[in-house]
């Protein structure tokens, strides 16, 4: 299409626009925005001294919100009409980014890993940044774990945080009652969480979709409420504190060593610095996450992984091919839960203190959002989504009370532009062609 004819089409489209309907629509949207904004941003309580609260009104903010929605709605519709009924022209930025990512998957992965390894050594690195990196990596690991259940096996699990909690509490209890260290307790955390995964899997074998989601949601809450109320064992709402920190091959990270032991900084003849522990913890989760990735991407190319994906595609066909759906589902739940348990164990040792408050539904929702946002089944997508979901609220701190608003807007924007997730590309688990060329 030439520029001139394109302009003509645009003029024609503008002429046929139904301005009254457009304005009505925009005014309605602005009205809804006003109603929402009034209680949300219109009033603010503040301390007037002596413990009493006063109310401050922010009607200017409400007006700004309404105006922004009015203008935005109008602009959105105009754009759609001008593109002849909202037809998509060309590729969006994300689509091009995704395609580029797929073409250069290996170098991007290597650069990403190199960056993650070098992060604590970079000049601009700080304790805050390493802490943030640790949090991102926990979510990356959880995302990869949940990806097995949701992305590959297609079993919608809204209670994944339960396994994270089971892993964390397993380690906390083993450390408190049996004096196990992080590395000793790690396998048990995974094992116990995996058994809980299988226990959850058994009653939900016949359920799919919404029904499965509801049961798993309930399971997540059950675990949290048990932790909250079983005070003699779990400490109830007070949680468990003084969870031991991980040691470096038996060398603890402490200013002064307990009797008869050498600390990390003494052994290596370094000055003591709390940053050493933070950095070490960062490397532990980096290693755990990389092992998780290796493990799950390898499983995907094995019969068990393909059976998970086949189950997601069509359970009836699986049965007709002699695949036992029970085993396939339980293995997905079990392995997903095990990875969550490992992450939970790490979480406990990192925090040094755990309580049921850390394992609320919002955590499950965040992890699921990471998997869905990244693109179901995509390993790279999970990383991207985890970085986005964890760092976005952090960078948003500058905007104080508008932080979550920006976060929400970003989520909506991503789902509008990339409804199937950031990197929604499925790499086949094996190819006929590649094998041929390799054989030559």
């Amino acid at each position, binding site marked *: 299409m030439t520029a001139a004819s394109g302009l003509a089409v645009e003029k024609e489209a503008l002429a046929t626009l139904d301005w009254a309907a457009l304005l009505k629509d925009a005014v309605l949207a602005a009205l809804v925005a006003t109603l929402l904004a009034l209680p949300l941003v219109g009033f603010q309580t503040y301390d007037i001294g002596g413990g009493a609260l006063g109310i401050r009104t922010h009607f200017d903010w409400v007006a700004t919100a309404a105006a922004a929605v009015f203008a935005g709605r109008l602009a959105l519709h105009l754009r759609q009409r001008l593109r002849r009924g909202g037809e998509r022209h060309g590729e969006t930025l994300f689509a091009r980014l995704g395609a580029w990512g797929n073409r250069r998957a290996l170098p991007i992965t290597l650069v990403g890993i190199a960056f993650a390894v070098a992060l604590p050594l970079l000049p601009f690195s700080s304790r805050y940044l390493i802490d943030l990196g640790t949090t991102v990596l926990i979510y990356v690991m959880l995302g990869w774990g949940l990806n097995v259940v949701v992305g590959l096996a297609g079993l919608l699990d809204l209670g994944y945080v339960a396994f994270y909690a089971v892993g964390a509490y397993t380690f906390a209890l083993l450390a408190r009652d049996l004096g196990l260290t992080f590395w000793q307790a790690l396998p048990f955390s995974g094992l116990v969480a995996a058994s809980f995964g299988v226990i959850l899997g058994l009653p939900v074998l016949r359920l799919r979709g919404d029904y499965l989601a509801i049961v798993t949601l309930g399971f997540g809450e059950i675990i949290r409420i048990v932790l909250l109320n079983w005070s003699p064992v779990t400490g109830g709402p007070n949680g468990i504190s003084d969870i031991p920190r991980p040691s470096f091959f038996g060398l603890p990270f402490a200013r002064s060593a307990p009797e008869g032991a050498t600390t990390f900084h003494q052994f290596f003849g370094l000055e003591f610095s709390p940053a050493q522990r933070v950095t070490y913890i960062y490397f532990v989760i980096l290693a755990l996450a990389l092992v998780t990735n290796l493990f799950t991407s390898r499983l995907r190319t094995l*019969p068990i992984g393909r059976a998970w994906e086949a189950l997601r595609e069509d359970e009836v066909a699986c049965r007709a091919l002699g695949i036992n759906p029970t085993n396939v589902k339980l293995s997905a739940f079990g392995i997903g839960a095990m990875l969550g348990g490992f992450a939970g164990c790490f979480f406990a040792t990192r925090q040094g203190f755990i309580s049921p408050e850390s394992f609320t539904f919002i955590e499950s929702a965040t992890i699921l959002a990471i998997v869905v946002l990244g693109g179901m089944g995509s390993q790279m997508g999970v990383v991207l989504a985890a970085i986005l979901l964890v760092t976005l609220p952090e960078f948003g701190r500058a905007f104080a009370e508008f932080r979550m608003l920006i976060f929400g807007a970003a989520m909506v924007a991503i789902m509008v532009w990339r409804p199937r997730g950031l990197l929604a590309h499925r790499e086949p688990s*094996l190819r006929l062609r590649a094998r041929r060329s390799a054989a030559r």
Partner: protein
Amino acid sequence: MTSANEVRETLLLVEHLTMRFGGLTAVHDLSFDAYSREITAIIGPNGAGKTTVFNCLTGFYKPSVGRLIMHVDGEALLLERMDGFRIARQAGIARTFQNMRLFAGMTVLENLIVAQHNLLMSASVFSIAGLFGLPRYRSAERAAIERARHWLDKVGLIERADSTAGTLPYGAQRRLEIARALCTGPALLCLDEPAAGLNPRESAELNELLLAIRAEERIGILLIEHDMSVVMGISDHIIVLDYGRKIADGTPAEVRADPNVIKAYLGEDELEKLPETTAADIALAADRK
């Protein structure tokens, strides 16, 4: 047709199969046999209970009454007592579906590899041998790919091996589903309307494929079909169902001449108006969609 010097090998024995859903009897007292290296067709008007028979055979339904005996390696297995996935695994019955059930998001090759799941799973020893890429697993995987390649060649999909199954044209998806069933290494292949929605050329190719399977493999084929050019052209024997009852059983020629069959397809009144020889042909043609 079985040649004279070959003994007919009974594969499947269906005895007094009855399937009731509440007050509805979908299949009533049905008995028939199917043989290895033969094509047995089940035909009948819509709602005659053909697919119900398949669902009973493959364990999706538990029959209300009756015995289903499958002969595998000299052993008689009672299908009505087995889980669906065990029927596919141990009794060697593979099936396709009336409205295709491919793993649409996976590639053609992956579809065929998933069909060999049990074989590969035991080679991967709870995924441990697979995780570490032990030679034992790798050679099993190579063999699985080789088998997939063999059937892809047969159904003419070798060029599309790495395409996503859902993107194939309709006829190719039908062929892929048959190839997938064959990759399980079945003794009995149950095809539920494989020619539905195929054009005449594709339908003729399907005939050739089924005849080739019968000639080359030790497989019995059980076929539900509406397309009479397929049924009459390749079946060794035909079972006709109407309202869940068997009304005829025999070679294509016998079935074609059977007055009961003509009655079932055209209704009694029509039959009287027509000369007998053409009635059956018209009836069967009417059923062709």
